[in-house]
């Protein structure tokens, strides 16, 4: 293969002129990947008056910002944003491009991957650089894109062996935020934007924002319920326990699908990744996708009727039994101890 670039790029998603957390988390991961490739970490910042975001990215390890500013770019729109990235990627052919697996990232990354004929892996839970052998051929310093697949029964390592550009999306909270104490030597490269008539094919008429009151990521205690609770009525016990412990309510994907709990409280690969002091998993069997979102909790308590449920394998404390019986006992005992 031709000489490959050693650049790692992160698309910095901004909403209302502020960088979103997942983009900064990806810079921290990207920094480590770039070190291994002995290459630079570059942030792509697109918006209107977003130089302050460019400056912010340096704190997380960006060596260079590709800055594209124009009043037409204030809000994300698929066509102009993807056009900018397509042009940049075709011109510079970076080795790795990372996107947050947000609504915007999941709208943008596939379109760009298609246009630049790059490999793209969604919702990675781990990214690593390694030299491996694939079909008898050595792939030097290739990106291992690791994600659960098939309902969490397997963990797949995906690679892009024959293409110059490797792309991945990652959910918020999966990579850890670790700002630098002292930023690197940095530079900003402004790239001009030329509007195109096709940009107007989709126009934003109106946006409504709901203040997101759920703060799972920052909660020290999380009580999560699963499909095993059986009914929405039983799920109220989760709310009661969370209330008594001063924690937040969460759920597994199955609980969300069953309508027990809203999606913004879903923990796991396709939800939120959390690292609380205490995570209580009630009626959650513990499929890998769920565990991917909570296994780094400081302490995990599992409550389940099935003694063989995989959740017990990662729990620090396991209680085999029916939540309907155990949660009231837990609440009583806790109130009693506090007295």
């Amino acid at each position: 293969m031709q000489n490959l670039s050693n650049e790692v790029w992160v698309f910095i998603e901004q909403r209302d002129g502020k960088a979103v957390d997942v983009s900064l988390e990806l810079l921290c991961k990207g920094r480590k990947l770039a070190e291994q490739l002995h290459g630079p970490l570059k942030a792509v910042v697109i918006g209107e008056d977003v130089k302050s975001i460019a400056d912010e990215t340096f704190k997380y390890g960006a060596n260079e910002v590709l800055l594209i500013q124009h009043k037409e770019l204030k809000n994300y729109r698929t066509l102009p944003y993807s056009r900018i990235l397509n042009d940049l990627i075709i011109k510079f052919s970076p080795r790795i491009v990372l996107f947050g697996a947000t609504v915007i990232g999941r709208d943008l990354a596939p379109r760009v991957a298609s246009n630049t004929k790059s490999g793209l892996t969604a919702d990675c839970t781990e990214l690593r650089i390694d030299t491996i052998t694939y079909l008898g051929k050595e792939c030097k310093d290739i990106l291992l894109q690791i994600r659960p697949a098939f309902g969490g029964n397997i963990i797949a390592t995906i690679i892009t062996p024959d293409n110059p550009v490797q792309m991945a999306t990652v959910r918020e909270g999966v990579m850890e935020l670790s700002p630098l104490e002292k930023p690197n030597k940095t530079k900003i490269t402004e790239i001009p934007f030329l509007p195109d008539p096709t940009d107007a094919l989709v126009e934003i008429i109106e946006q409504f924002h709901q203040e997101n009151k759920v703060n799972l990521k920052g909660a020290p205690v999380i009580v999560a319920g699963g499909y095993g609770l059986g009914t929405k009525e039983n799920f109220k016990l989760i709310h009661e326990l969370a209330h008594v412990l001063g924690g937040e309510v969460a759920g597994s994907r199955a609980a969300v699908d069953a309508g027990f709990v809203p999606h913004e409280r879903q923990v796991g690969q396709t939800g939120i990744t959390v690292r609380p002091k205490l995570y209580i998993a009630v009626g959650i069997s513990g499929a890998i996708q769920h565990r991917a979102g909570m296994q780094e909790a400081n302490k995990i308590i599992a409550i389940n009727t099935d003694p063989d449920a995989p959740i017990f394998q990662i729990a620090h404390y396991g209680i085999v039994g029916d939540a309907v019986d155990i949660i009231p006992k837990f609440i009583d005992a806790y109130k009693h101890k506090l007295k």
Partner: protein
Amino acid sequence: MYNSIVLVKQVPDTANISGKVMKEDGTVNRSKLPAIFNHEDKVALELALQVKEKYGGKVTAITMGPPRASDILRECLYMGADEVFLISDRKFAGADTLATSYVLSEAINKIGNYHFIFGGRQAIDGDTAQVGPQTADKLNIPQVTYAEQILDIKKNKVTIKRKIDGGHEIVQATLPVLVTVIKEAAEPRPFSAKKVMAYKGAKSLTDLEKLTEGNSLLYTDTLIHEYQERNLFISTLTMDDLQLDVDRCGVKGSPTKVHKVESVVLAGGNQTRVEPTKDGIGILIDSLLEDHILG
């Protein structure tokens, strides 16, 4: 009049995988998995049918997959699709989203004459949400993902409410457009009993070949003709029909490769079993308070 092409997919029912589906070596035995109609694609079909009912037009459902994927095409007919196509060829096997979107976009170009392409936001077997945008890119048309409601269609513009992180937005798109829908967008209608009666005998080329196998009195060509006459033939589009570049199909056309698949091995932790009694739970709470995990 607005014509829609709906992208549908048959997926393994990943929510109901039992232990037996895993092979000894830890890989998935796909043939053992129950196959279902990807729910969000059904929602997409429902939306296309609603557009047809309100504004007139035609609804065509297409799927890329193995011959058995014709099951869900029959279900599309039961719901009210006017025409269905099975896009199937051994050379399509092992396609990632890039190769899949190439084949789909060429099939769409061949069918032509559309205002909308509808599809589910994502399929539950991979949850990637990539095929929609990648197909739109190859067709060189705009996309609206995460659509929740079609508010209005006027001339060549559609107004759509879509979900975004932390809220909603309303966008206006110029047709033709590719729209991916979330499950809140519509409740798929039940099958029409009349249509089930009419189409339950619909067969694809592979189905008919199976009928003629071992029966010297039947000829595939005659059967195809007969089924076409009765409007019961599910057309198959192969690589040759679509005149595709073989290097862009299947495993060959897929930049991403599966390097390794591991079955999930759980490391046995140092777990403390807590008795499900008042005393047992009391001891647990004591140690949590002591470690400053609680309180």
